[in-house]
């Protein structure tokens, strides 16, 4: 099955029109010794057979929609209203290309414009682009934007150790050819200490809020940091959790210059890590230094409102090696899912989801804190917190899964070798009280050496 409509008769007629005798002749430019190699692949399958194979593969995974799951660490399980998949499954959205012909792409362009508007309002920023690949790459692009704003005069980046370890890794990968000094994340630092690291060579300071360990940076501290960073002439970049913004003060209100983050939590399935979307919002004054596609409003020649991609002179297809980024394809359909999610929930719905996350996580933390041998870190948190276990986090998780069918928290020793007994536990609106109580009972049972 190759999804090819033409028959042998069609092909014969077309070959004749082209003036060649066989399809093989069309490939005479390909070096003859390399032409038509053997490709060793499994035998082709019908739709019935391929779905059977895939279903078998899918069933070998523990589906964390079915099991009680307390894993977060950058990818979050939230309820996705049915309307989201209904919209993003539509052929008109799913099977269109990037809207290069705006007259017949107004659906995609208006949806992106509305997505940008909602992200700007959610983050309290002035401008949003059409999305980046994920939270990690959006954070790296924010760093590059800060370098561009500094016109190459500042080569130092201060990154908080509270930024997701994978985001920090991607920042380093992206910028490895740029001769930068990236500092600040070798030890846990307070907001004041981060402010102290910022100097006249610093292009930006990058923080995460709530940070990777769940801790909230209060608006007053974030504002103070922004003031210090601006006094150095640098930008403040904050990776934020979009669901938390249903209730928490948005980064724009605290003086943040670029607010980025993982948008998956807004209506996108976990899907083993992707496709997600990186949202990217910033102050208007930096728009010409920004990366990624941006939809803008205009009119057609009859004066009707319409939308186009704008400021494309920043982009690779016009500017080539002088572009602000190489990004071209982004995560349009995932951004659409986020927009439909935000529209469906509205301000009250998103606030309620955020409040449910807060209350349930705090309830879980309070119950776990009462368990002998367990300690919950004292910091103020949103929906994720650290638990120090009496035995290794790895063994705790194994027992939780094997004995109780629970997918536990994130074992911090996977990224921080000294933190062998610490679990990062995430609780969202998806976790019922019964599930939380089950986790607490299970922890008390598995916590013996």
């Amino acid at each position: 099955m190759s999804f090819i409509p033409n028959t042998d008769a069609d092909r014969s007629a077309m070959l004749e029109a082209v003036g060649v005798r066989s399809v093989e002749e069309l490939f005479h430019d390909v070096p003859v010794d390399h032409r038509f190699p053997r490709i060793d692949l499994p035998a082709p399958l019908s739709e019935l057979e391929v779905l059977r194979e895939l279903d078998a593969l899918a069933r070998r995974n523990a589906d964390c929609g079915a099991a009680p799951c307390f894993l977060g660490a950058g990818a979050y399980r939230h309820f996705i209203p049915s309307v989201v998949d209904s919209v993003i499954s539509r052929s008109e959205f799913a099977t269109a290309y990037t809207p290069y012909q705006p007259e017949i792409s107004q659906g995609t362009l208006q949806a992106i414009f509305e997505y940008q508007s909602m992200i700007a309002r959610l983050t309290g920023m002035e401008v949003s682009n059409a999305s980046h690949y994920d939270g990690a790459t959006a954070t790296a692009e924010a760093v590059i934007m800060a370098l561009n704003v500094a016109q190459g005069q500042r080569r130092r980046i201060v990154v908080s150790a509270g930024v997701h370890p994978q985001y920090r890794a991607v920042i380093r990968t992206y910028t490895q050819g740029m001769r930068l000094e990236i500092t600040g994340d070798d030890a846990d630092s307070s907001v004041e200490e981060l402010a102290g690291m910022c100097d006249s060579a610093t292009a930006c300071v990058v923080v995460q809020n709530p940070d990777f360990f769940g801790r909230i940076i209060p608006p007053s501290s974030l504002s103070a940091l922004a003031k210090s960073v601006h006094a150095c002439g640098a930008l403040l970049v904050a990776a934020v959790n979009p669901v938390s913004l249903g209730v928490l003060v948005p980064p724009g209100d605290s003086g943040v210059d670029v607010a980025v983050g993982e948008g998956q939590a807004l209506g996108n399935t976990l899907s083993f890590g992707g496709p997600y979307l990186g949202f990217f919002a910033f102050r208007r004054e930096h728009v010409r230094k920004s990366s990624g596609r941006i939809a803008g409003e205009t009119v057609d020649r009859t004066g009707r409102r319409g939308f186009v991609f704008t400021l494309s002179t920043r982009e690779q297809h016009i500017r080539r090696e002088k572009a602000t980024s190489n990004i071209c394809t982004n995560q349009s359909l995932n951004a659409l899912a986020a927009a439909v999610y935000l529209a469906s929930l509205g301000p009250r719905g998103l606030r309620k989801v955020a409040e449910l996350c807060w209350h349930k996580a705090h309830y879980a933390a309070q119950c776990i804190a009462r368990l002998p041998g367990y300690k919950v870190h004292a910091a103020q948190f949103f929906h994720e917190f650290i638990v120090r276990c009496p035995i290794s986090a790895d063994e705790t998780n194994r027992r939780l899964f094997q004995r109780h069918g629970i997918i536990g928290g994130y074992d911090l020793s996977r990224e921080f070798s000294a933190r062998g007994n610490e679990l990062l536990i995430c609780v969202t609106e998806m976790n019922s009280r019964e599930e939380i109580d089950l986790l607490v009972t299970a922890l008390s049972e598995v916590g013996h050496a």
Partner: protein
Amino acid sequence: MPEPLLFEKSRPGREGVSVPGCDVPQTAIPAALRRPSLPLPEVSEVDVVRHYLRLSHLNYCIDEGLYPLGSCTMKYNPKVNEAAARLPGFARLHPLQDPSTAQGAMALLFGLQRMIAEIGGFHSVCLQPSAGAHGELTGILLMRAWHGARGETRRNRILVPDSAHGTNPASTSMAGLEVVEIPSDTRGNVDLLQLRAQLDDRVAGLMLTNPNTLGLFEENLLEITRLVHEAGGLVYGDGANFNAMLGIAKPGLMGIDVMHFNLHKTFSTPHGGGGPGSGAVGVGEALAEFLPGPLAVQAKGMAGGEPRYEWRTPSRSIGRVKSFHGNFGVLVRAYTYIRMLGAEGLRAVAENAVLNANYLQSRLKDIYPVPHGDRTCMHEFVAQGKIAGAPDIRALDISKRLIDHGFHPPTNYFPLIVPEALMIEPTETESRETLDSFIEAMRTIAREAVSDPDLLHDAPHSSPVRRLDEVKAAKELKVTAG
């Protein structure tokens, strides 16, 4: 009818989805942490559904008809792909679950890595990059790291043909390397003399799109890769046009050291109006240990009668280019497609894509100039939007008029080296009748251009909006609602 913005439909108090009540004791949220307001639209569920349904009607898509955007490979996206990616065991799988609870997903990733490596003739494949440009950045960083590991830090130049996609030079600069442009020769190939002149000990490598953006197979491919290697450089393959090469030739065996595959082009995953995509990267053995990690690998021992999989980060990895494991949902779709086609099906894809393109080229080149129309094209060809007897008609006018005839236009004004370029790629999933109706539309437009040029200048006439003022959009920048 234009569709109002969601914000314009908003009415205070209207709600969409209902959220359950709280079933645990509540903990007060400190007032200092609370945002004062959240100005999102307030709409009901039916408002949301109708809004997006109406917006969807303003889009053209591949499920509606021919979408001959050159270099974009807009082929039909099989529906089974969607069913596969939505299986609960995939869609509801957390990326940080213990590998023992994600063996099926890891088996799929491993299997896809192996299948893509086999199709392209590569040693290893990394599935992390999310798009073609992301794969390019990964590839250039790999080349840089390889030279660095050999102490050849002087090599900071990447040669890029003038026919290349804009992402090639942009990815090169992002990786901190310098771009040197190489002109094309009269046959549309890389100019060998100019290439030779640039090959010195400052060259890190060459980026080569093959077939190139003129739709032509690089006639001197083996000599080019040999020359670059002799000069100590590496060759990067831009796989945007790999649809023409499936089962026809393996780039990895023709001197391409590293290449990205656009799974959202060649391997049928839908474009989603601009993503998500996947830019999987294949490399030869020399570069394998530099790949981003972790990769799914087969471990010793078995798990429940099946091979066991684990994560492994290559020893000299350039680092992650993305969080987690790449665009997994896109990878499931590509896996499904490759499994359904098998080796024979993939070759049939390339053969039919190339036949369709040559058929269009042969039937259109007597009306529209095709600068390299004397050559056999691959999956696409570049015509010029120039019509005898209609001197003020431009490629853009022809494209916009095609919309009135019910087709998505080809790619305009690219590649940059062909004035008034119309880059046409039909793909293999179009029938002869569809191609014939496109040819007929192009012939009609050529006649209209002479008899009534304003019909073209004012086109499109039938679309939801007419030509849009892009200058105004940039000048009076409005990128958010009210």
